[in-house]
């Protein structure tokens, strides 16, 4: 059986005027279903590019990408949109909530366009925001906002949850709570979760840790016994 996600010699070259910048220089890795994957690397290593391409926000220059048996590297813009719509859940570093919508509405924004969303109330309860349902983002703390973002991503019932530096804008404690939420989601819903971080301290919590460096995969560690996030200190 082939892997849930597979990158085969994926390259991404940006044309900046006359200069070509190779963001990805042939990336290969595999991710299985239900894995909690941490993609780690320094700034500019190419981890965000991987996420963008995997998330269908960008396309690769060459190589093949398979997600759940589909070759998404062949997708056109519209197919990519559909892919994002039904298969991907995003959690952004800066939450990217719509300021003008309440918590419920921000979740609704995502669920109204997908095929079989999860129950909104349950999802919000799952991230622990049942009491803040009617609040606007500005009335929430950073951690709460990120929970909303996670709820928004989860409610879509995606195949894949992509998180870009989910703790980047949060303090230590809140960040930890968010990571725990993600880890629990992965375990409980058996969802494939990919977290991008430059914080190497987080790597022990992943089932699989992909180290990116200068556009290539430096190494892939597999933790047979990932550590619960509570016991990680950084």
């Amino acid at each position, binding site marked *: 059986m082939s892997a849930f996600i597979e990158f085969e010699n994926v390259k991404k070259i940006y044309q900046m005027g006359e200069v070509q910048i190779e963001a990805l220089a042939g990336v290969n890795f595999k991710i299985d279903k239900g894995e909690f994957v941490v993609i780690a690397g320094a700034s500019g290593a190419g981890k965000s590019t991987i996420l963008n391409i995997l998330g269908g926000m960008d396309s690769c220059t060459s190589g093949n990408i398979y997600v759940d048996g589909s070759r998404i590297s062949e997708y056109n813009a519209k197919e990519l949109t559909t892919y994002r719509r039904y298969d991907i859940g995003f959690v952004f570093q800066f939450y990217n909530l719509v300021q*003008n919508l309440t918590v419920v509405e921000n979740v609704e924004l995502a669920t109204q366009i997908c095929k079989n969303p999860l129950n909104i109330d349950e999802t919000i309860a799952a991230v622990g925001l049942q009491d803040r349902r009617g609040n606007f983002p*500005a009335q929430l703390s950073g951690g709460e906002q990120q929970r909303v973002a996670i709820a928004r991503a989860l409610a879509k019932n995606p195949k894949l949850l992509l998180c*870009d530096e989910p703790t980047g804008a949060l303090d230590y404690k809140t960040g930890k709570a968010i990571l725990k939420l993600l880890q629990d989601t992965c375990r409980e819903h058996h969802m494939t979760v990919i977290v991008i971080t430059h914080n190497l301290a987080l790597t022990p919590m992943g089932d699989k840790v992909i180290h990116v460096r200068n556009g290539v995969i430096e190494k892939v560690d597999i933790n047979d016994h990932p550590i619960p996030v509570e016991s990680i200190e950084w």
Partner: protein
Amino acid sequence: MKSALLKDTLREVKKSLGRFLSILAIVAIGVAFFAGVKAAVPDMKHTADQYFDDYKLEDMQLISTIGFTQDDVDAIKAVDGVEGVMAVHNMNALTIVDKRQLVLAVHGLPADLSADNPDYLNQANLLAGRLPKHSGECLIEQGKIGSEINVKIGDTIQLTSGTNVDISETLKTDTYKVVGITLSPYYLSYQKGTTNIGSGTINNFMLIPDADFKSEYFTELNVSVKGARSLNSYDDSYFDIIKPVKQRIKALSKDRIDMRKEEIRSKAEAEINKQEQLYTANKNTFDTRIQDAETKLEDTRIKLKSSKDEIIRQRSTLETTYQQNLKEITSGETQLKANMEQYNASKQALDDRFQNEIQPKLIQLQSKLGQNQEAYHKIIDAINNTKVSLENAKAENPPDEAKIKELEKQLEDYQNTSKVMEKDIGDLQNQIAGLGKTYHDAKAKLDGIKAQLDAASSALRTSRNQLEQGKAEASAELDVAEAQVKSGWKQYKSAKGKLLDEKTLGQQELNNAREKLNNAKSSIDELAAPKWYVLDRHSHYSYMDYGSAADRMDAIAKVFPVFFFVVAALVCLTTMTRMVDEQREAIGTLKALGYSRGAIASKYVAYAAAASIIGSIVGCVVGMIVFPTVIFNAWGLMYSLPPVKLTVQMPLAMLTTAIAVVVTTAAAFMAVYKELVETPALLMRPKAPKNGKKIMLERVTFLWKHFSFTEKVTARNIFRYKKRFLMTVIGISGCTALLLAGFGIRDSISQVVSKQYGSIFKYDLSITLNSGLSLYQKHEALIDLQKDKRIQGIMPIAQYNGNIQDGNQDAAITLVIPSDVKQYRTFTSLHERTSQKELSLSDHGAIITEKIASKLHVGAGDTIQVDNGSGSKRKVKIIGVVENYIDHYLYMSPKYYREIFKAPASDNVLIADLRDDRKTIENAVGQDLVKRDDVSSVVFFTGMAESFNDTISSLNIVTVVLVISAGLLAFVVLYNLTNVNVSERLREIATIKVLGFYDKEVSAYVYRENILLTCIGAGTGLLLGILLHRIIMSVAEMDTVMFGRNIEPLSFLYSVLITIGFALIVNIAMYPKLKKIPMVESLKSVE
């Protein structure tokens, strides 16, 4: 400004060219509109004034009830300040061109026609040909839309006076050769005023040598004032120069009038005496004529009566004779019948006798005869036998004598017996014959009688037939005679009716004339009091009409551009706010580097100032050329003027630019100032996004619940950005309002004709009768036209060109006095406009039309002064105001008119409705009517409707200008809105893209707001448009025309659709930009 900052500003402009251009564009549009429309008015006035100066329009005109003498002219020339005096004559006359009767204003030209002659004023603006040099030559006005006159140089014009006075008493010749086509500064307007001849409206003017006028008195003096020409006559300073001269002339007039007072009075008296004599002569003629006619009629009556009697007499004679003859015949018949009966009885008796008596006897006799004859024959046989036996016995030898003897004896016996028997037979035979003879004789006698009776019967029958036939013939003859008499009666009766009409109408006319004469006599002092009218340009129709047109434009200029300025300010404010928001960091950095607030703000202020200055210059240049030209030409279609002379109006340009620059830079400063008060540290940090918050609508739970998710988002967004909301709603509503006003103008104007000649005047044509007709002739004309199968209905009305006055305002008005108020309802609908309530013409007051009522600020219950055209001014009470669009009318019932003006209204117009108003039929009817002697002019409303439509079609240009402006406005506003909306919500849009919204859904997410705002704006715009339309209509109206106030439903639809169309175009244009937003934006930190 430091050079680095300057560079920064320049780069900023280059980088955000779209933003810069949008500010520039809105400023340019606003400025162009404001400055352009504003500049149009001075340009209009300047062009006209220049024209007045070039062709020396009079500064003052003097009119007198008694004319002017050469002495008057000299006296005025001597007045201080007077430059030149043109003393000429004028009159109104009729002519027929292309079968159409036209009213011409005929003005005299002085002998010296050199342009520098100070006494040659109101100079002809010769377009073609030459000036008239000799008697019988004329200049004619160039045809203008609505008053086309198809006359070329070389044509001749035949003039008639249109009154009882022959034109030869006024002019030396009535035939004029056209030697030139001209315009005159005296007549700018398409409307040249009214008159009491022909159709009542002056169509064109004509200039002839003044020497052609016979009268020794000048009818008008045109005066020019020294130094007046150097001033713009639409300025007050012009009147400052005119006023003292006017005063001096007025003072002079008193002396001049006194000198001629007595002369005038005696003249007036002579005129009245002349009229009196004329009246008496007319009355005598009339009386004699009526008397003659009556005598003749009476003769006829007597003759007819005797004829009738004769017939009756003859009829009775005929009957008597007939009866007599009939009686004779009947008695003959009775006699005959008796005889016949007698005959029949005799015949019966004879037959009976024959049957009962003669026949049995005959049979008896016959049988007896037979027996006797038999016996006789036996005897004869016996004789013969005996003879034989005797012979035998004789011949026996021996003869047995005894036997012989015996035999002989026997024979003798026999013979005796036979003799007896013979005799018996003979007797019998005689008896039988006798009996037959008797019968036959009786029968023959009866037959004779029968023949006699038959002859008598046939004779009687013949006489009877003859009698009947004779009677029928005589009777038929009498019937014919009777029919003749009957038709004679009929003729007599109709003649009698006619005579009665003629008599009553003639009497009435005489009474009217008497009344008029009495009035004239009693008011001779009033009539004789001469008066000079010294009129400056305030009383000059064209000058005032044109001036007010320009002022109306000025009013529009005040209303319109406010829109554009408000929108420009809002566009600028939102744009600059967005720009400043985007550059918080830069501002913070500059602040941290130690630049002063002023220096930092100057960048943005300079940016806005640059955009607005360039925009203003572009706007001023374009606007001040385009708008005055368009507007001038639009009005120019109604005025005869040379091409527009654009003036450089620096103060206006400077002012407009200043306003525009101040507004935009203030907006820019306000935007940047908010940021500048914050500390650099705060500035360098991303600005907290505007918080979401519950909007009012959410409190209305039952409504909010029904909103779909996206609708909620849209609703919140709209209310979150109030500035944008305001800008868009004002901008879009402005756009819709302009469109609606534009379409509305068209609707209102096109409705004018259909309403006036469709639902108000329900008749098709108006026939003006010859003014010289007597009441009876008018009556005859009416009767005659009633017979025309093509005419469905016709009725006479009295129509006078009068004047109406209230306070110091006055206006020309048409007085209409229908002969039959009830019948008039089927011809004209007198109803209030708003309530559509039908008003009835009562005998207690007059009904007035809407436009003039509102102009004079009068309504039901008010009293106004009305002049019925013959100089008598009376107070008239108004009882109602009715809908009307073209011209002004005052309706009065005949009774009320008589009560007010102390004289009955004399019908002079027939209004008629055609059964079929197709053009061909109209033409045929028109031609037939014009041929009649009693008809002076015929006006078809279709023709009037056409010419009116032509005249006002010029306003369509206004519509085009409005639509173009609306489009520009919509584009700028919507482009700006969308632009700001998109750039401000870049992250949000990127996020929803990442969430998997398809392109269409993304654009719908953004555009729903635009569409909703467009709809709100369009809705508001409709209300605003109605208002705007009303303002434009009321200011753009001509004096004698009221435009409709309603807008067709379709126009509302079009305005909204076009607005939405503009919005769609902008949205479509923005679509690629939306599509191009990179999703990676969502990953970036908050700006």
